[in-house]
């Protein structure tokens, strides 16, 4: 029995829209388990990213609870949320969003420095190791504008895990990458998950979704389906793809 690390109860999120309210999330209940690679899928506009942002404390839900470590993060103060973002959660954006005037190495060490549990040299060593692992150590002194999108995203992964987060959130991490870079980044995420990292990824890419061992399907702000899969490394990939495809087709994806 896997342990719940994060859960959402009756989660709602609305935006002001054309003088009215646009309900993007509607009473979502879900749980995220430790060490799992959970994938959220859904059509465009279904609320996938909104759910991810609400769960990760990047945005506040309009109603409902997001429980993490016994606390409802919806009710946390701005300072507490900021601490949560740099110490417990890691986040990977679709557009990488590296700080453009910092080198790749600096982009990774800055959130590390925010975490006062580690010394500066420890942060720096870990950042160097991560960049090595992400195969971008040779370009660590480059600015984001001087490297490719794939290299930027690998750096963004390193940044997201610099503080060894409890949960790694990824919002369409391969959405802006070519085929080769997509595979590289997904391999990195799979490897991290294999090492015990809990991952929650939003994607509409079937190949990316195959990496998860649990897929949630969102439609009109509600979770309407859940598919459990064996570990990515085990089993036949073709059969896995067929299974997921069939499931998605049944959900009219």
């Amino acid at each position, binding site marked *: 029995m896997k342990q719940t690390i994060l859960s959402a109860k009756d989660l709602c999120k609305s935006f002001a829209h054309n003088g009215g309210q646009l309900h*993007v999330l509607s009473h979502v209940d879900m749980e995220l388990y430790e060490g799992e690679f959970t994938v959220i899928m859904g059509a*465009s*506009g*279904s*609320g*996938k*990213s*909104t759910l991810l*942002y609400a769960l990760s404390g*990047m*945005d506040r839900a309009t109603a409902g609870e997001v429980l993490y470590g016994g606390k409802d993060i919806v009710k946390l103060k*701005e*300072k507490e949320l*900021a*601490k*949560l*973002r*740099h*110490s417990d959660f890691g*986040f990977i*954006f*679709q*557009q990488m*969003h*590296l*700080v*453009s*005037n*910092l080198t790749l190495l*600096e982009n990774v*060490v*800055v*959130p*590390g*420095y*925010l975490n006062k549990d580690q*010394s*500066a040299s420890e*942060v720096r060593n870990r950042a160097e190791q991560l960049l090595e692992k992400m195969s971008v150590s040779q370009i660590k002194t480059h*600015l984001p*504008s001087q490297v490719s999108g794939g290299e930027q995203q690998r750096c963004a992964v390193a*940044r997201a895990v610099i503080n060894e987060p409890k949960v790694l959130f990824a*919002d369409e991490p391969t959405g802006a990458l070519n085929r080769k870079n997509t595979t590289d980044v997904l391999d990195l995420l799979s490897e991290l998950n294999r090492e015990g990292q809990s991952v929650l990824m939003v994607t509409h890419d079937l190949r990316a979704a195959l990496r998860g061992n649990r897929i949630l399907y969102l439609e009109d702000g509600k979770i309407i389906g859940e598919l459990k899969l064996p570990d990515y490394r085990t089993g036949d990939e073709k059969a896995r793809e067929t299974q997921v495809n069939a499931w998605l087709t049944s959900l009219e994806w």
Partner: protein
Amino acid sequence: MAYLVGMVGGVMEILTLLKANIRHKKGSFMSVVLLTMIIAMSVTTILGIKESAFEGVYASHERMATPDLWVEYYAYKLTDEMINEVKSDARVESVSLDEFFFADKSVMNGNEYTNSVMIMKADEDTSLVEDDLSGFRDEAPELKKGEIYVPQGLLSNVEGKVGQKVTLETIGGDFAFTVKGVLLDPYFGASVIGWKRYCISEEDYDEIRAKIEQKETEESHAIGKYMEINKADNCLLTLPQFRRQLNQDTGVVDMGNGSLTRDMSIYYTTLFPQIISSILMVFIMLLLAIVLIVTVHSISMEIESNYVTFGVLKAQGFGAGKIRILFLAQYLLAEIIGAVLGIAVSIPFIGVSANIFAAITAVPAVLSVPFGLIGLLLSVLFVLSAAAILFVTVKIKRISPVRAISGAKKEIYFDSRLNVPIGSKFLSASLAFRQFTSAKRRYLGIFAIVGILVFFMMTINVLSHTVSSKSASESMGMVVTEIDVMPKKQLAEEDFAEIEKEIGRNAKIEKKYYYRVDYFSFEGEQIVCQPYKDPSVLPPLKGRAPIYDNEIAVSPILLDEFGLEIGDEVTVGWEREKEKYLISGTFQLMNDAGRSFVISQKGAERIGYERWLWGCYSLEEDEETGKIVDSLNEKFTDRIEARESQGMTDGTYQLAILFMQMIIYVFSLLFSLIVVHMVCAKAFVQERTDIGIYKAIGFTVAKLRLQFAVRFLTAAVLGSCLGAVLSYAFSARILELILYRIGITSFKTAFGVLTFVLPIAVICSGFFIFAYLSSGKVKKVQIRELVQSL
């Protein structure tokens, strides 16, 4: 026709974009409106107040029908022969005479006015102004015994009011009067002119005159007469030429104790408003330069952040010319709105503050706003601004639609950086510094603006410090003393030694000067002269002191005015005697606004000058001055009269400089606020994504705001260094140009710690605080903005 339709179409396109731009960039538009409004307000207010003060002086002269030339004599010296000679001169239209007696000192409100003043009978020509100087009074009530009318100049000097008592000390005794009103005397009423005239009742006048007459001796005269001379209409000479030529032919000025033309009186009366408004106008010109920098900077940033938009516009067929016209229209519209609002707001303000200089000019201001000049100055701003806009928007020509749309944006931002590592200890500060060095051009404008503001703040501090610092004033050649001793009879060297011994009992004498101030004839012109026992006590600007009895040293202003050089020979006269003297050097002399010269006592004796020199003492510590003066007057009562000196360090000057300092500091902070707000708003738009990223990785709002503030602080610190360098290099020169009118031709800058520290501290903390406040928008950035879909 097709051309006309095309043109109308072009205008419509620009108008549509203009409206959209103003709607979307309200903050930027309003900031330019506000900056121009401040400039227009300042220009209108300063010129309006100055013009009103000047108009008041002119109107007062007209009202009082003041003479072209005024000469004052001891009564016994003015002969009928002299009067007739002047009257019969073809250049003279009319001559009138009046009698007065001298009072040596006026004591009011516990304060002393130590210049000799002329006491006259009030008559039907006596005219008054309202007690608060708000206007002219229609009539002057007849004075009763014990009542007096005095000009505002006295009240300003002694901090007195109507209704208070004034005691006049004369050789005939001391007499107390109640001030019944403020006398309108545009010729001598100003607080900066030493001569003064008071009016008393006929009964009092006759009574006191009789007592003085009894006390008059050959060495001590106190009954005088003055001659008021008007130039004939057909005489085309200027007033200085008229005075010089009339004096050369009749000696009418040489025989007097002093003379003044109407032009000179107006010059001295308006000197102070002129200097203050000049200093403030220089400051306004610098603010104008700042507006231009802000405009250029703002447009430059706008082009960078709208690079893609301009590419799209170009792709749609908009030429660079149209986009540039759009910028021109947007900024000029903002400036014109600001200018109109500024003028409109300042007019009522001038109405209530026009009389601000009345305490100095001693006449009511007459409201007058020089719209033509203001319009001209603001037109210069518009023209310069248009030129700057056209210059900075040239780069729009170089925008390639394809390159812009395909994302050349990244090449524009953060194109260079300094290798300062990001540290964990000062994370926010090091990140702020990185952000600063990555977008140096964005802060270049702030650097220049702070440089200008700090430069001028330091310049005004230098002026204040120099005027209030005795050593600094002395280094410029000013004679700054604490005690002046006026002999009542011829004193021997032993007498002065005894006096100095007495002073030395309470304070150490730092410097001593034996001199006097009197009007001598200089090349036929009456010029104030300082006969010195030892002129070498003064530091010469060029050449050397006049140590031989055939030498004089002059002020550079006098040298320029008469087209002379060191080594030239000039004619100097005292009363009827004249001799040739060589100019040995130049001194910085401030008497009569720098129209002055120095002679040795022996040199003066060559032309019959026999007046007793004063002993003036500069003390190391001035706390005991009052006590020393009292003990000198008590101990040597029959030989001398000791006084506390009045000079440049007096309250009026200090107050005026403090007033200017306040205006300059307040305006500098106001400008800083607007500039920070403008730059911050643009930086915020450009860095919105980065702010979102920083928030996403765990930075708090407070930390991000601190980063913003530190960047502006860095720019302000660097700008302050520029300001300090500019101040060191140019403050003295600027002050010399402005203060030339009061005789300062060589300004020695005295930099105190506060001179530097105060402006830097004020501007840097202002920038830090304003940037921190402006960065409040960081709160509004949502991390959600980083995501591209729901």
